[in-house]
Protein backbone atom coordinates (compact mmCIF):
# COMPACT_ATOMS: atom_id res chain seq x y z
CA UNK A 1 0.00 0.00 0.00
CA UNK A 2 1.28 3.42 -0.96
CA UNK A 3 2.28 5.74 1.82
CA UNK A 4 -0.72 8.08 2.34
CA UNK A 5 1.67 10.95 3.08
CA UNK A 6 3.53 10.56 -0.17
CA UNK A 7 1.01 12.89 -1.89
CA UNK A 8 2.33 15.80 0.17
CA UNK A 9 5.85 15.34 -1.16
CA UNK A 10 7.32 18.42 -2.81
CA UNK A 11 8.86 17.51 -6.15
CA UNK A 12 11.18 19.84 -7.96
CA UNK A 13 10.22 20.38 -11.56
CA UNK A 14 12.69 23.09 -12.44
CA UNK A 15 15.78 23.98 -10.46
CA UNK A 16 16.06 27.69 -9.76
CA UNK A 17 18.80 28.75 -7.40
CA UNK A 18 19.00 32.43 -6.60
CA UNK A 19 22.18 31.81 -4.62
CA UNK A 20 20.87 32.92 -1.26
CA UNK A 21 17.63 31.01 -1.57
CA UNK A 22 16.19 27.99 -3.35
CA UNK A 23 13.41 29.22 -5.65
CA UNK A 24 12.84 26.00 -7.56
CA UNK A 25 9.61 25.55 -9.44
CA UNK A 26 7.88 22.62 -7.71
CA UNK A 27 4.59 20.76 -8.02
CA UNK A 28 3.30 23.11 -5.31
CA UNK A 29 4.27 26.14 -7.41
CA UNK A 30 2.62 24.55 -10.45
CA UNK A 31 -0.68 24.30 -8.65
CA UNK A 32 -0.39 27.85 -7.35
CA UNK A 33 0.11 29.01 -10.93
CA UNK A 34 -2.78 26.81 -12.06
CA UNK A 35 -5.01 28.30 -9.34
CA UNK A 36 -4.21 31.81 -10.51
CA UNK A 37 -4.88 30.73 -14.09
CA UNK A 38 -8.18 29.05 -13.23
CA UNK A 39 -9.38 32.03 -11.20
CA UNK A 40 -8.25 34.46 -13.88
CA UNK A 41 -9.88 32.53 -16.73
CA UNK A 42 -13.05 32.04 -14.69
CA UNK A 43 -13.41 35.73 -13.85
CA UNK A 44 -12.15 37.36 -17.01
CA UNK A 45 -13.71 34.76 -19.30
CA UNK A 46 -17.04 35.07 -17.54
CA UNK A 47 -17.03 38.82 -17.95
CA UNK A 48 -15.90 38.91 -21.59
CA UNK A 49 -19.38 39.81 -22.83
CA UNK A 50 -20.22 42.13 -19.95
CA UNK A 51 -23.90 41.78 -20.69
CA UNK A 52 -26.47 43.62 -18.67
CA UNK A 53 -28.46 40.42 -18.39
CA UNK A 54 -25.85 37.85 -17.39
CA UNK A 55 -25.56 34.38 -18.85
CA UNK A 56 -24.68 31.31 -16.80
CA UNK A 57 -20.95 31.90 -16.64
CA UNK A 58 -21.26 35.60 -15.93
CA UNK A 59 -23.84 34.82 -13.24
CA UNK A 60 -21.38 32.52 -11.52
CA UNK A 61 -18.73 35.22 -11.63
CA UNK A 62 -21.17 37.75 -10.23
CA UNK A 63 -22.32 35.35 -7.52
CA UNK A 64 -18.73 34.81 -6.36
CA UNK A 65 -18.18 38.57 -6.39
CA UNK A 66 -21.38 39.25 -4.44
CA UNK A 67 -20.59 36.43 -2.03
CA UNK A 68 -17.26 37.93 -0.98
CA UNK A 69 -18.59 41.50 -1.22
CA UNK A 70 -21.42 40.65 1.19
CA UNK A 71 -18.99 38.93 3.51
CA UNK A 72 -16.82 42.04 3.63
CA UNK A 73 -19.82 44.37 3.98
CA UNK A 74 -21.45 42.36 6.76
CA UNK A 75 -18.29 41.73 8.76
CA UNK A 76 -16.19 44.82 8.16
CA UNK A 77 -18.56 47.53 6.94
CA UNK A 78 -18.15 50.17 4.31
CA UNK A 79 -14.53 51.05 5.16
CA UNK A 80 -13.61 47.47 4.30
CA UNK A 81 -14.07 48.24 0.60
CA UNK A 82 -10.43 49.20 0.30
CA UNK A 83 -9.37 45.69 1.29
CA UNK A 84 -11.96 43.93 -0.85
CA UNK A 85 -9.57 43.03 -3.71
CA UNK A 86 -7.19 41.39 -1.23
CA UNK A 87 -9.93 39.43 0.51
CA UNK A 88 -11.47 38.42 -2.79
CA UNK A 89 -8.09 37.25 -4.11
CA UNK A 90 -7.48 35.35 -0.89
CA UNK A 91 -10.82 33.57 -1.08
CA UNK A 92 -10.55 32.66 -4.74
CA UNK A 93 -6.92 31.54 -4.35
CA UNK A 94 -7.73 29.24 -1.43
CA UNK A 95 -10.91 27.95 -3.06
CA UNK A 96 -9.13 27.18 -6.33
CA UNK A 97 -6.20 25.60 -4.46
CA UNK A 98 -8.47 23.41 -2.34
CA UNK A 99 -10.65 22.38 -5.25
CA UNK A 100 -7.80 21.66 -7.67
CA UNK A 101 -6.20 19.58 -4.94
CA UNK A 102 -9.18 17.23 -5.03
CA UNK A 103 -8.48 16.24 -8.63
CA UNK A 104 -6.71 12.87 -8.86
CA UNK A 105 -2.91 13.07 -9.13
CA UNK A 106 -2.97 16.76 -8.27
CA UNK A 107 -1.23 18.53 -5.43
CA UNK A 108 -2.86 20.54 -2.66
CA UNK A 109 -0.64 23.48 -1.78
CA UNK A 110 -2.97 24.44 1.09
CA UNK A 111 -1.98 21.20 2.81
CA UNK A 112 1.44 22.68 3.54
CA UNK A 113 1.72 24.53 6.80
CA UNK A 114 4.44 26.76 5.40
CA UNK A 115 1.96 28.11 2.86
CA UNK A 116 -1.00 28.45 5.21
CA UNK A 117 1.13 29.95 7.94
CA UNK A 118 2.64 32.47 5.55
CA UNK A 119 -0.83 33.55 4.47
CA UNK A 120 -2.05 33.69 8.07
CA UNK A 121 1.00 35.72 9.00
CA UNK A 122 0.32 38.20 6.19
CA UNK A 123 -3.23 38.59 7.50
CA UNK A 124 -2.05 38.90 11.09
CA UNK A 125 0.71 41.42 10.41
CA UNK A 126 -1.47 43.29 7.95
CA UNK A 127 -4.38 43.70 10.35
CA UNK A 128 -2.05 44.66 13.19
CA UNK A 129 -0.37 47.32 11.04
CA UNK A 130 -3.78 48.65 9.96
CA UNK A 131 -4.90 48.75 13.60
CA UNK A 132 -1.83 50.72 14.69
CA UNK A 133 -2.09 53.05 11.72
CA UNK A 134 -5.70 53.80 12.54
CA UNK A 135 -5.73 53.86 16.35
CA UNK A 136 -2.08 54.40 17.33
CA UNK A 137 -1.34 53.60 20.95
CA UNK A 138 -5.05 53.33 21.68
CA UNK A 139 -4.91 49.96 19.98
CA UNK A 140 -3.48 48.52 23.20
CA UNK A 141 -6.91 49.15 24.69
CA UNK A 142 -8.00 46.24 22.56
CA UNK A 143 -6.47 43.91 25.14
CA UNK A 144 -8.58 45.41 27.93
CA UNK A 145 -12.22 45.46 26.86
CA UNK A 146 -14.43 48.30 28.10
CA UNK A 147 -16.12 47.82 31.46
CA UNK A 148 -13.60 45.32 32.77
CA UNK A 149 -13.11 45.64 36.52
CA UNK A 150 -9.54 46.81 37.08
CA UNK A 151 -8.68 43.97 39.47
CA UNK A 152 -9.18 41.30 36.77
CA UNK A 153 -6.98 43.22 34.33
CA UNK A 154 -3.73 41.46 35.35
CA UNK A 155 -5.41 38.19 34.48
CA UNK A 156 -7.39 39.32 31.44
CA UNK A 157 -4.74 41.29 29.57
CA UNK A 158 -2.29 38.37 29.21
CA UNK A 159 -5.14 36.13 28.08
CA UNK A 160 -6.24 38.65 25.49
CA UNK A 161 -2.69 39.13 24.24
CA UNK A 162 -2.16 35.38 24.08
CA UNK A 163 -5.40 34.84 22.18
CA UNK A 164 -4.44 37.64 19.80
CA UNK A 165 -1.10 36.02 19.02
CA UNK A 166 -2.74 32.65 18.61
CA UNK A 167 -4.85 34.00 15.77
CA UNK A 168 -2.35 33.32 12.96
CA UNK A 169 -1.49 29.94 14.41
CA UNK A 170 -5.10 28.76 14.58
CA UNK A 171 -5.80 30.28 11.16
CA UNK A 172 -2.86 28.42 9.60
CA UNK A 173 -3.37 25.17 11.48
CA UNK A 174 -7.08 24.94 10.71
CA UNK A 175 -6.59 25.03 6.96
CA UNK A 176 -3.44 22.90 6.95
CA UNK A 177 -4.92 20.23 9.27
CA UNK A 178 -8.22 20.01 7.40
CA UNK A 179 -6.55 19.59 4.05
CA UNK A 180 -3.90 17.16 5.24
CA UNK A 181 -6.36 15.02 7.19
CA UNK A 182 -8.90 14.91 4.38
CA UNK A 183 -6.41 13.97 1.71
CA UNK A 184 -4.74 11.40 3.94
CA UNK A 185 -8.12 9.83 4.63
CA UNK A 186 -8.92 9.70 0.93
CA UNK A 187 -5.58 8.08 0.22
CA UNK A 188 -5.98 5.50 2.99
CA UNK A 189 -9.44 4.49 1.78
CA UNK A 190 -8.17 4.50 -1.79
CA UNK A 191 -5.41 2.09 -0.75
CA UNK A 192 -8.01 -0.21 0.82
CA UNK A 193 -10.00 -0.29 -2.42
CA UNK A 194 -7.00 -1.74 -4.21
CA UNK A 195 -5.88 -4.02 -1.38
CA UNK A 196 -9.26 -5.60 -0.65
CA UNK A 197 -10.05 -6.82 -4.14
CA UNK A 198 -13.77 -7.47 -4.66
CA UNK A 199 -14.60 -6.37 -1.13
CA UNK A 200 -13.03 -3.06 -2.11
CA UNK A 201 -16.46 -1.72 -3.08
CA UNK A 202 -17.04 -0.94 0.58
CA UNK A 203 -14.11 1.46 0.90
CA UNK A 204 -14.91 2.70 -2.62
CA UNK A 205 -18.33 3.85 -1.39
CA UNK A 206 -16.57 5.45 1.55
CA UNK A 207 -14.15 7.22 -0.81
CA UNK A 208 -17.08 8.60 -2.82
CA UNK A 209 -18.75 9.84 0.36
CA UNK A 210 -15.53 11.32 1.73
CA UNK A 211 -14.86 13.03 -1.61
CA UNK A 212 -18.26 14.69 -1.30
CA UNK A 213 -17.44 15.82 2.20
CA UNK A 214 -14.01 17.00 1.07
CA UNK A 215 -15.65 19.16 -1.59
CA UNK A 216 -17.69 20.83 1.14
CA UNK A 217 -14.60 21.16 3.34
CA UNK A 218 -12.60 22.64 0.47
CA UNK A 219 -15.19 25.40 0.14
CA UNK A 220 -15.79 25.73 3.86
CA UNK A 221 -12.13 26.11 4.79
CA UNK A 222 -11.60 28.77 2.14
CA UNK A 223 -14.70 30.51 3.51
CA UNK A 224 -13.59 30.18 7.15
CA UNK A 225 -10.12 31.52 6.41
CA UNK A 226 -11.63 34.47 4.55
CA UNK A 227 -14.32 35.29 7.08
CA UNK A 228 -11.81 35.17 9.95
CA UNK A 229 -9.65 37.55 7.95
CA UNK A 230 -12.70 39.84 7.68
CA UNK A 231 -13.33 39.60 11.42
CA UNK A 232 -9.70 40.40 12.25
CA UNK A 233 -9.83 43.29 9.81
CA UNK A 234 -12.99 44.55 11.48
CA UNK A 235 -11.30 44.35 14.89
CA UNK A 236 -8.39 46.32 13.47
CA UNK A 237 -10.61 49.02 11.99
CA UNK A 238 -13.25 49.32 14.69
CA UNK A 239 -11.64 47.69 17.76
CA UNK A 240 -14.38 46.12 19.86
Amino acid at each position, binding site marked *: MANPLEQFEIKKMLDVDLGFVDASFTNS*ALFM*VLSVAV*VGVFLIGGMRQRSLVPGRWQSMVEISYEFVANMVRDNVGSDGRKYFPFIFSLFM*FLLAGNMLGLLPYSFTFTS*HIAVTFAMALVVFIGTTVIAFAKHGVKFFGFFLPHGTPIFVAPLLVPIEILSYFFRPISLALRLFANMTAGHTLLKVFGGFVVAMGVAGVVPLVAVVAVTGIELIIAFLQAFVFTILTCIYLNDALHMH
Partner: protein
Amino acid sequence: MPQFDPSVWAPQLIWLVITFVALYFLMSRVALPRITDILEEREYKINDAIRKATGLKRDAEDAAASYQKLMADARAKAQAEVRAVRERADGEAADRHAELNAKLSEEVSRAEAGIADARNAAFDSVREMATEAAATATERLIGEKVDAKSVDAAIEAAIKGAS
Protein backbone atom coordinates in the same frame (compact mmCIF):
# COMPACT_ATOMS: atom_id res chain seq x y z
CA MET B 1 5.49 14.38 7.12
CA PRO B 2 6.88 16.20 4.10
CA GLN B 3 5.28 19.40 5.38
CA PHE B 4 7.78 19.72 8.23
CA ASP B 5 10.89 19.50 6.07
CA PRO B 6 12.31 23.03 6.17
CA SER B 7 14.15 22.62 2.87
CA VAL B 8 10.86 22.74 0.92
CA TRP B 9 9.59 25.90 2.61
CA ALA B 10 11.58 28.51 0.74
CA PRO B 11 10.61 27.56 -2.84
CA GLN B 12 6.95 27.27 -1.84
CA LEU B 13 6.94 30.64 -0.12
CA ILE B 14 8.65 32.36 -3.03
CA TRP B 15 6.14 30.97 -5.48
CA LEU B 16 3.31 31.74 -3.09
CA VAL B 17 4.37 35.38 -3.09
CA ILE B 18 4.80 35.45 -6.87
CA THR B 19 1.47 33.80 -7.64
CA PHE B 20 -0.55 35.61 -5.00
CA VAL B 21 0.79 39.02 -5.95
CA ALA B 22 0.05 38.21 -9.59
CA LEU B 23 -3.47 37.15 -8.66
CA TYR B 24 -3.96 40.27 -6.54
CA PHE B 25 -3.03 42.56 -9.40
CA LEU B 26 -5.04 40.52 -11.88
CA MET B 27 -8.06 40.85 -9.62
CA SER B 28 -7.70 44.46 -8.52
CA ARG B 29 -6.65 45.85 -11.91
CA VAL B 30 -8.51 43.71 -14.44
CA ALA B 31 -11.19 41.38 -13.17
CA LEU B 32 -12.87 43.23 -10.31
CA PRO B 33 -13.23 46.62 -12.07
CA ARG B 34 -15.04 44.89 -14.92
CA ILE B 35 -17.46 43.22 -12.53
CA THR B 36 -17.95 46.43 -10.55
CA ASP B 37 -18.61 48.34 -13.78
CA ILE B 38 -21.27 45.98 -14.98
CA LEU B 39 -22.94 45.73 -11.57
CA GLU B 40 -23.03 49.50 -11.22
CA GLU B 41 -24.30 49.92 -14.75
CA ARG B 42 -27.03 47.39 -14.10
CA GLU B 43 -28.03 49.05 -10.85
CA TYR B 44 -28.09 52.42 -12.59
CA LYS B 45 -30.20 51.05 -15.45
CA ILE B 46 -32.64 49.39 -13.07
CA ASN B 47 -33.00 52.53 -10.95
CA ASP B 48 -33.41 54.59 -14.09
CA ALA B 49 -36.09 52.25 -15.40
CA ILE B 50 -37.88 52.33 -12.05
CA ARG B 51 -37.75 56.11 -12.01
CA LYS B 52 -39.08 56.28 -15.56
CA ALA B 53 -41.81 53.79 -14.76
CA THR B 54 -42.83 55.81 -11.71
CA GLY B 55 -43.01 58.94 -13.84
CA LEU B 56 -45.09 57.19 -16.48
CA LYS B 57 -47.39 55.78 -13.83
CA ARG B 58 -47.92 59.25 -12.41
CA ASP B 59 -48.61 60.58 -15.92
CA ALA B 60 -51.10 57.81 -16.53
CA GLU B 61 -52.81 58.53 -13.24
CA ASP B 62 -52.96 62.22 -14.09
CA ALA B 63 -54.41 61.42 -17.49
CA ALA B 64 -56.96 59.09 -15.94
CA ALA B 65 -57.93 61.75 -13.41
CA SER B 66 -58.30 64.44 -16.06
CA TYR B 67 -60.31 62.02 -18.20
CA GLN B 68 -62.61 61.34 -15.26
CA LYS B 69 -62.97 65.03 -14.63
CA LEU B 70 -63.66 65.68 -18.31
CA MET B 71 -66.27 62.94 -18.34
CA ALA B 72 -67.96 64.26 -15.22
CA ASP B 73 -67.97 67.81 -16.63
CA ALA B 74 -69.39 66.67 -19.95
CA ARG B 75 -72.03 64.62 -18.21
CA ALA B 76 -73.05 67.53 -16.00
CA LYS B 77 -73.13 69.88 -18.97
CA ALA B 78 -75.19 67.45 -21.02
CA GLN B 79 -77.64 67.04 -18.16
CA ALA B 80 -77.90 70.80 -17.74
CA GLU B 81 -78.59 71.21 -21.45
CA VAL B 82 -81.17 68.46 -21.44
CA ARG B 83 -82.85 70.08 -18.48
CA ALA B 84 -82.81 73.50 -20.18
CA VAL B 85 -84.27 72.10 -23.39
CA ARG B 86 -86.93 70.23 -21.47
CA GLU B 87 -87.84 73.34 -19.49
CA ARG B 88 -88.05 75.40 -22.63
CA ALA B 89 -90.16 72.78 -24.33
CA ASP B 90 -92.38 72.54 -21.28
CA GLY B 91 -92.75 76.32 -21.23
CA GLU B 92 -93.60 76.45 -24.92
CA ALA B 93 -96.09 73.66 -24.57
CA ALA B 94 -97.76 75.43 -21.66
CA ASP B 95 -97.89 78.67 -23.64
CA ARG B 96 -99.37 76.98 -26.64
CA HIS B 97 -101.81 75.17 -24.45
CA ALA B 98 -102.93 78.40 -22.83
CA GLU B 99 -103.21 80.09 -26.23
CA LEU B 100 -105.25 77.24 -27.60
CA ASN B 101 -107.46 77.30 -24.54
CA ALA B 102 -108.03 81.01 -24.94
CA LYS B 103 -108.82 80.66 -28.62
CA LEU B 104 -111.14 77.77 -27.99
CA SER B 105 -112.98 79.47 -25.19
CA GLU B 106 -113.28 82.59 -27.33
CA GLU B 107 -114.73 80.57 -30.18
CA VAL B 108 -116.99 78.74 -27.80
CA SER B 109 -118.27 82.00 -26.39
CA ARG B 110 -118.66 83.43 -29.88
CA ALA B 111 -120.54 80.35 -30.96
CA GLU B 112 -122.66 80.54 -27.83
CA ALA B 113 -123.38 84.18 -28.61
CA GLY B 114 -124.37 83.21 -32.19
CA ILE B 115 -126.61 80.46 -30.84
CA ALA B 116 -128.21 82.87 -28.39
CA ASP B 117 -128.76 85.43 -31.18
CA ALA B 118 -130.21 82.78 -33.45
CA ARG B 119 -132.41 81.56 -30.65
CA ASN B 120 -133.58 85.09 -29.85
CA ALA B 121 -134.19 85.76 -33.53
CA ALA B 122 -136.09 82.54 -33.87
CA PHE B 123 -138.00 83.27 -30.73
CA ASP B 124 -138.88 86.78 -31.94
CA SER B 125 -140.02 85.53 -35.35
CA VAL B 126 -142.07 82.78 -33.74
CA ARG B 127 -143.67 85.29 -31.46
CA GLU B 128 -144.29 87.69 -34.29
CA MET B 129 -145.82 84.92 -36.32
CA ALA B 130 -147.83 83.83 -33.31
CA THR B 131 -149.04 87.35 -32.76
CA GLU B 132 -150.01 87.73 -36.41
CA ALA B 133 -151.63 84.35 -36.46
CA ALA B 134 -153.46 85.11 -33.21
CA ALA B 135 -154.61 88.51 -34.56
CA THR B 136 -155.78 87.03 -37.86
CA ALA B 137 -157.50 84.15 -36.11
CA THR B 138 -159.26 86.49 -33.68
CA GLU B 139 -160.33 88.81 -36.55
CA ARG B 140 -161.83 85.87 -38.39
CA LEU B 141 -163.59 84.63 -35.32
CA ILE B 142 -165.06 87.84 -34.06
CA GLY B 143 -165.00 89.78 -37.28
CA GLU B 144 -163.42 92.87 -36.01
CA LYS B 145 -159.95 94.22 -35.85
CA VAL B 146 -158.13 93.40 -32.68
CA ASP B 147 -155.90 95.86 -31.03
CA ALA B 148 -152.25 94.80 -31.57
CA LYS B 149 -151.36 95.79 -28.03
CA SER B 150 -153.79 93.50 -26.34
CA VAL B 151 -152.73 90.60 -28.60
CA ASP B 152 -149.17 91.16 -27.54
CA ALA B 153 -150.08 91.14 -23.90
CA ALA B 154 -152.13 87.99 -24.35
CA ILE B 155 -149.20 86.18 -26.10
CA GLU B 156 -146.83 87.29 -23.41
CA ALA B 157 -149.12 85.91 -20.78
CA ALA B 158 -149.46 82.67 -22.72
CA ILE B 159 -145.70 82.26 -23.08
CA LYS B 160 -145.21 82.96 -19.40
CA GLY B 161 -147.82 80.43 -18.53
CA ALA B 162 -146.21 77.85 -20.85
CA SER B 163 -142.70 78.21 -19.70
